[in-house]
């Protein structure tokens, strides 16, 4: 025991160095594609920082926010909502059956925040002042953006703490793991609170755009709609990620997880369906309350119905049918459709139905799409790196 401990620091260091090396073949089609996207993306961001945002984006005085905010941050954060839902279920509500997916969910959530919210730096005009709302006397207390920034930052720390026992387990640091695990309940409670508020806060950012956003999407209840939709967005992302991980990381997954995999999928499907019913009901109330019937007959009305009927109501019905008939395929289709519906909703609010009353429109450039793809690929690569080394898909030792 004593000998092992005295040797531990040296061997741990060597262990980390060993782990840093790539595992498996490097020249796979996926790796080549990822390298191509990331190198290209880095060149584009370099051009952006040398010549300004206008050099690579289609942003304008009328559209100050484009794809990098509308997709990377606003949609990405909704997709990352799974972490707070699953930690809430497992650690606060003590839902034991979801235990096997809590680690991948937290890892996915944490990395999404680091990469998607981190992509905000590309979009900031003066990113060297990014610390101003965090330190010093530049506190814009009355700003929703200030609040979102703080809740983002603190939630990233909370998620890192939630994931830290896995890192400790990987490094075989038993004592650290015990201490870090003791923090989990408190961190989760704080994390769920922070999530609720910044998911809502992203919606609240658009409360100012009353005169710019189409009335079918503008409502004083945007914050509530954003929180509720982040629940099923997060669940759908976990279903999609779980489906892919189940195939890709087959050998890394604990046998117990295999055994309960279907049961977990169907309870998640049920959870998604129920929150979608709530969301649709809220949408209906907001619609009736806003008295926007006359807009339904316009092209904006048709577009609104595409989002609400095809990409929310139908996947909701598919989830319901899927868990009742225990059909994995339906649940998977529903998850993908739901994610598309969330993407549509967030882009509608932030870009498509924004400035509906102006003649100008905004389409992202190829370069904006490219940089967004870079962010996605970078996240996947880091996710894979962590999963292949740390005990993400295996038992947590109790």
């Amino acid at each position: 025991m004593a000998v092992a401990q005295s040797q531990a620091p040296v061997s741990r260091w060597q262990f980390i160095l060993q782990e840093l090396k790539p595992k498996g073949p490097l020249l796979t089609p996926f790796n080549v594609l990822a390298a191509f996207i990331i190198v290209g993306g880095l060149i584009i961001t370099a051009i952006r920082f040398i010549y300004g945002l206008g050099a690579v984006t289609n942003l304008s005085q009328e559209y100050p926010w484009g794809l990098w905010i509308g997709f990377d941050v606003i949609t990405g954060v909704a997709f990352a909502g799974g972490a707070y839902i699953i930690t809430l279920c497992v650690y606060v509500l003590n839902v034991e059956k979801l235990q096997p997916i809590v680690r991948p969910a937290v890892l996915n959530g944490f990395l999404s925040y680091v990469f998607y919210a981190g992509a905000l730096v590309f979009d900031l005009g003066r990113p060297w002042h990014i610390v101003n709302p965090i330190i010093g006397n530049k506190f814009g207390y009355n700003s929703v953006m200030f609040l979102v920034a703080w809740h983002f930052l603190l939630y990233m720390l909370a998620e890192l703490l939630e994931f830290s026992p896995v890192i400790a387990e990987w490094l075989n640091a038993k004592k650290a793991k015990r201490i870090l695990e003791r923090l989990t309940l408190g961190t989760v409670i704080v994390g769920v609170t922070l999530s609720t508020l910044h998911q809502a806060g992203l919606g609240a950012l658009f409360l100012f755009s009353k005169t710019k956003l189409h009335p079918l999407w503008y409502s004083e209840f945007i914050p509530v709609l954003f929180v509720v939709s982040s629940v099923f967005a997060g669940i759908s992302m976990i279903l999609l990620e779980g489906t892919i991980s189940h195939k890709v990381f087959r050998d890394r997954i604990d046998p117990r997880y295999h055994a309960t995999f279907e049961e977990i999928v169907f309870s998640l499907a049920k959870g998604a369906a129920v929150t979608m019913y709530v969301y649709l009901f809220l949408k209906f109330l907001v619609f009736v309350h806003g008295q926007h019937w006359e807009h339904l007959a316009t092209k904006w009305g048709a577009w609104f119905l595409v989002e609400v009927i095809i990409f929310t109501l139908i996947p909701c019905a598919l989830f319901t049918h899927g868990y009742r008939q225990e059909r994995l395929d339906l649940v998977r289709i529903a998850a993908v459709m739901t994610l598309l519906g969330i993407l549509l909703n967030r882009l509608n609010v932030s870009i498509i139905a924004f400035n509906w009353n102006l003649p100008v429109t905004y389409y992202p450039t190829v370069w904006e799409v490219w940089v967004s793809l870079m962010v996605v690929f970078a996240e996947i690569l880091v996710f894979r790196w962590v999963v292949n080394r740390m005990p993400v898909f295996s038992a947590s030792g109790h």
Partner: protein
Amino acid sequence: MNRRKFLTLAASATAVATAKAVGAVSFKRQEKEKEEFVGVLIDTTRCIGCRQCEIACAEVNQLPVPKPGEDEGLTRTRDTSPEQFTVVNAFNTEKGKVFVKKQCLHCWQPACAAACPSNAMEKTPQGPVIWHPDRCLGCRYCMLACPFNIPKFEYFSPNPRIRKCTMCFSRLEEGKIPACVAACPMDALQFGKKRELMEIARSRIYNNPDRYVRHIYGEYEAGGTGWLYLAGVPFEQLGFRTDLGTETFPDYTREFLYAVPLVDILLPSVLYGIWELTKQKGGK
């Protein structure tokens, strides 16, 4: 007598101290009310479209100076830009051609300042809304928030700034009036405190009912603006948005912001309670 004087003195000192401690807020508010916001009244019926204001603005702010004789600027509707803080546009109306100067309206409760996460947009106590380069992150939320689309961003600069009219804040500090007001040969622009400007505007409408529509743009729009407009035709015909409502823009987010500390405190307590309720014997 000495004793009496001492007691009076002591009593009043205590009263002042208490008043300062307890009534700190009301004291401050009184102080604020002493300084009235300044603004400018723009009478579009007087404007002849000479664009001297544009030239003066460009010179003061070291921007490219427009050449009204050559650039045919009045033939199309222009917007302000990072290189042009004010523009004059011509509108064909039922009363013929009308010229309208456009610039920041310096709202009484500006959306841009409420949106800014780092107080880079500031409503100064004097009235002008100004931008602080040392605070701004470049998130452009002010641009999204502004109902008049006034803040403009330098998209082709590695060190971009938010650019807009400052009501010549530095000139005001020197005791001068805004450059555009000083340059106007027709007295179409008038600088002053809003209350005085409102009186001038109202008396013009009352004395010349045929010349003006009975609407002072900026009196209530978006909660009231520092710059006010008089016109001879309805403002819709002059490119103004008349659907902005009378609520101040910070009000749109106020309820949400009030809810935040409540949720931050209440939700963790509720969640902890739920955990206590659902936990199995032995803690896990």
